[in-house]
């Protein structure tokens, strides 16, 4: 743990460095960057040791705060999430040093860096804390760091609103966690996770209550439907590197919490698995559908986080069913898929947000309808973004495919498990639908943003961003490709984590997952073959063309002489037919004018449910105002009434 804590301290130091010498911004930027890189590297040492199969002994602090000792430790689960956090986090932080430097007119850059480092440090503590009070402390610290990182550009009303919605939502989640651990702790000797695990047997009926509270409390953070309402707002409002971490990493802590509670609670009843599976299907389908409806690049990406959380939950759910119906193979596959998708989503979602950041930096707009043809100005960004898109759609030979493939495996196996779990095979169809929709959505994004003709002058003028922006993104893209081409790099560790969660012995788990791991190598072969064949055909084609003429012309517009940029298919029109198929639940309203067609997307839960609720509460509170009417006699009357009521109580309940 020494390595780990020194890493955390380095991260904090990097935050401090950002604010310490405001006179020398350049220097502080450098120091901040290198300290955070060093911190991440240091903290990674024990992580890799654990993932390689080693162990790291935890530490206990006795603080006198009620709830027992403060324990910090790294087990495979923590290690895996630390990998997620540090991997995506350090790339984002490197990107951020560069990105924020150009944001000085919007907010305080040093403060932005400080809260970002705080956020990273809090994240690492969340997944290593092994008792309740430090866990909750780190949890809230993470939420606050996130908040202040999001509201960087706090002069804009929409940013402040998004921030407030996020803050209130996360605080509500935290209070649910209070109740969760309060309920659990009332049966436990102390509030260390070990103590809770020991008490899980004594929970009895309140076990389901604990599960429900965990699902809600952590769900708000994970942001699955319908608890996702804060997510698109906040992630769109934040600076791009913050969006990357929020969307790629922070929401994963919700998943971590669920997994942690699952490990402490022990074998779940079947209906928990079904609940999680159905929630997963719902938020995967709705998330991608709502993403299709967006024209704001970052908001669209944020909705895809809802979708991917859904995919992760599907893996969790089917895994839980495997445990519940005693099909260990199923359990291991499902959970391994979920765990692996957590990592993959962190990688490609951060990559995509960084790409979006580049576009924003180069053009100053996030509105798809105002972009286009960026491929000429920004070839590198385009390539990186394309990798990310293919990965998130789940296409081979990239990492997204590997984890979705595991989840598919689990769903199919459930199909012939000869247990009640077999119904979850329909999840495969849902996941396929999600894949298809995601393909459509990212075809839309890539096509409308990068391909075709520039729709505006800013898009035409866009030029490639500097290396500082590209290198972190490139690193993430490399990781996506690596996992896609050599899946067995991550299959083994993810199976180990799954083993920890399911309680299956590690060797057994590896044995059960053997076919999948072997298949991983075949996937590599397949990917290689695909690349080779395509390259071969490409070469043949080039060969054929060398002997003949290659002419350039305007696009064939079916006889129409001069097509203009405004005649291109827009994002709205591209998505219209699909959204038409799904009708009302897509939350889209189409605006047709003779000269233009556009669709407007609504955040259904927020705008149709929560905002009205807030209004109702406000109205109710206004109706209570007359209580504080200002007249002393009235106040005295309250006093008299209270005393009389008390006397009545005395007469009724008092002893004779």
């Amino acid at each position, binding site marked *: 743990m020494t390595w780990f804590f020194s890493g955390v301290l380095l991260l904090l130091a990097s935050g401090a460095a950002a604010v310490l010498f405001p006179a020398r911004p350049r220097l502080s930027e450098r120091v901040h960057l290198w300290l955070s890189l060093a911190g991440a590297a240091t903290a990674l040492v024990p992580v890799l040791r654990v993932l390689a199969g080693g162990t790291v002994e935890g530490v206990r602090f006795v603080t*006198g705060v*009620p*709830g027992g000792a403060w324990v910090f430790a790294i087990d495979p689960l923590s290690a895996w999430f630390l990998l997620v956090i540090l991997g995506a986090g350090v790339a984002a932080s490197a990107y951020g040093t560069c990105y924020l430097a150009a944001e000085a007119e919007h907010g305080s850059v040093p403060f932005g860096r400080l809260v970002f480092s705080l956020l990273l440090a809090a994240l690492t503590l969340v997944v290593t804390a092994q008792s309740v009070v430090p866990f909750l*402390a780190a949890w809230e610290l993470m939420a606050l760091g996130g908040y202040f990182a999001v509201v960087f550009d706090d002069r804009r009303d929409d940013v402040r609103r998004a921030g407030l919605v996020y803050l209130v939502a996360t605080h509500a989640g935290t209070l649910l966690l209070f109740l969760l651990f309060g309920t659990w702790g009332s049966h436990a000797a102390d509030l260390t996770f070990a103590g809770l695990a020991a008490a899980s047997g004594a929970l009895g009926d309140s076990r389901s209550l604990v599960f429900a509270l965990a699902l809600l409390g952590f769900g708000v953070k994970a942001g699955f439907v319908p608890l996702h309402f804060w997510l698109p707002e906040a992630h769109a409002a934040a600076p791009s590197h913050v969006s990357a971490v929020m969307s790629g990493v922070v929401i994963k802590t919700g998943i971590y919490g669920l997994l942690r509670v699952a490990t402490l609670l022990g074998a779940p009843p079947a209906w928990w698995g079904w609940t999680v599976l159905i929630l997963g299907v719902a938020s995967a389908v709705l998330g991608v559908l709502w993403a299709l409806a967006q024209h704001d690049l970052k908001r669209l990406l944020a909705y895809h986080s809802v979708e991917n959380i859904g995919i992760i939950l599907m893996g969790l759910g089917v895994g839980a069913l495997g445990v519940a119906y005693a099909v260990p193979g199923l359990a291991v596959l499902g959970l391994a898929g979920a765990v692996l998708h957590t990592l993959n989503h962190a990688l490609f979602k951060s990559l995509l947000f960084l790409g979006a950041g580049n576009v924003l930096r180069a053009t100053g707009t996030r509105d798809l309808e105002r972009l286009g043809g960026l491929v000429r100005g920004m070839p590198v960004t385009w390539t990186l973004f394309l990798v990310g898109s293919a990965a998130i759609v789940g296409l081979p030979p990239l990492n997204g495919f590997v984890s979705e493939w595991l989840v598919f495996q689990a769903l199919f196996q459930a199909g012939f498990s000869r247990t009640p779990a077999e119904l979850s095979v329909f999840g495969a169809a849902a996941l396929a639908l999600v894949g298809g929709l995601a393909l459509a959505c990212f075809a839309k994004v890539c096509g409308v943003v990068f391909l075709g003709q520039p729709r505006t002058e800013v898009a035409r003028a866009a030029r490639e961003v500097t290396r500082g922006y590209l290198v972190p993104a490139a690193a993430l893209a490399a990781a996506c490709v690596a996992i896609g081409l050599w899946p067995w790099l991550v299959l083994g560790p993810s199976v180990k984590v799954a083993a920890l969660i399911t309680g299956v012995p590690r060797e057994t788990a590896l044995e059960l997952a053997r076919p999948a791991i072997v298949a991983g190598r075949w996937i590599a072969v397949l990917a290689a073959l695909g690349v080779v064949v395509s390259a071969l055909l490409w070469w043949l084609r080039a060969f054929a063309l060398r002997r003949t003429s290659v002419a350039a012309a305007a696009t064939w517009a079916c006889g129409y002489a001069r097509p203009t940029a405004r005649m291109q298919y827009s994002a709205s029109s591209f998505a219209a037919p699909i959204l038409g198929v799904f009708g009302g639940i897509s939350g889209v309203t189409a605006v047709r004018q003779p000269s233009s067609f556009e669709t407007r997307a609504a955040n259904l839960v927020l705008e149709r449910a929560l905002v009205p609720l807030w209004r109702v509460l406000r109205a109710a509170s206004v109706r*209570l105002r007359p209580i504080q009417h200002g007249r002393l006699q009235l106040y005295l009357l309250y006093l008299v009434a*209270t005393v009389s009521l008390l006397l009545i109580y005395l007469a009724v309940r008092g*002893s004779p």
Partner: protein
Amino acid sequence: MIVLALILVPAFAALGAYAHRESAFRTGWLVVAAVVHAGLVGVVWAAPPEPVLGGWIAADAIGLIVLSVVSGLFLMAAIYAVGYLRRETPRGGRAFVSCLLAFLGAASLVTLSQHLGVLWVGMEATTLSVAPLIYHRQDRRSLEAVWKYLMLSSVGIALALLGVFFLATAQFAAPPGARPLVLPDLVRDASRLTPSWLEAAFVFLLAGYGTKMGLAPLHSWKPDTYGEAPSLVGGLMAGVLTSCAFLGIVRVFQVLVAAGLAPFAQPLLLTFGIISLVVAAAFVLGQADVKRLLAYSSIEHMGLLVLGLGFGGVGAYGTVLHVVNNALAKGLLFLAVGNVVLATGTSLVAEIKGLHRALPASAALLVVGLLAATGSPPFGSFVSEFTILRSAVASGHVVMALVIAGLIVMIFAGMGRSVLRVFHGDPGRAVAAHAEDIWLLAGPVILAGAVLMLGVYIPAPLGRALAGAAAALGGVSP
């Protein structure tokens, strides 16, 4: 002897301050007295003194904890007063400082008295010594505020006196040797007290001291008073006065617990607690004035205190700890708001913007205070609120726990909305730069550090005191 000194030093200091004409001297006098008082409290922690005056005056666990809160918060307020009195000279003139000191003396008397009659006298004294502080501006609004405050709390205090009489009556049946109205004896002979009179006494003391605490629906003076009083005084009222009033209820509750009558009291406490939370939530939403906002937040925390007492178990521990945290957080908030008011000349949410650009330090303190007051980890109030919620669940009130959590979220939303609105954005008009002055910042900074520390580390002696207090309230320490 030390315990007497704790009461007499501020009292004489008050007289001395009134005697002296030089205002700078008075301020120094104030700080010195506060420091001496704090030092004495430190001595009491180090070496627990013997009871004096036939056991009427003594420092037991609960009293000592509240006393330390009183002394510490007062010291911070005194330091703040140095900066404050440089900017504003209250029309009260000499009265201001001496009333502050008198208030300290009275509060110390409340915390140290084991005789419930004497405790009542101290409570009355606090009421009266605060009144001129509220009225320092001497305009219509502050006049109205002080009138309402005095009327309501006088009626309350009168009811409390009736309660004290009832308590004495309940002691008729006690063995002859028992000293009347002295807490240890009451607790000792609890089983032989007349239950009906004891319950009557509790009811009236609850109503009386509840009025001074500001439990809804007895709270109605609070927003007006806190809104009009200078922030410094508001901080002392929200931190010290309420704690003292709560101590009064705690004392009689101790007797009830000893007499095995807790089941009679607890439903009342829970009802008051829930009503207070509801009222606070209702009026925090869309509150236009930051100081009134703090008043309702204070009502919320009074509610939490009695809730913890009502749930019992670990709740008692949480409650005593929450007394400390609430006092620190409220002091911090009021002093921070005081800086804002000094700089902008208003406490209306609509008229303040972009504080973190205009007054970075005070703005940061304001947000820290917000988090501390809403029980966000890792602040001390988180630990106490969490413990109280735990006791709610442990005592089988799961639904009530959910309701409480919901109300706390509403209050957080309301407070957060207002505070963050003034925190963010562009500072419209220029604000007085002088507001960021070391004297004005030292107090809140130290308070922030303290409330933060209590969230991550509780010193062993304090832990023991808390455990002892919880035990005296029939609770257990988690």
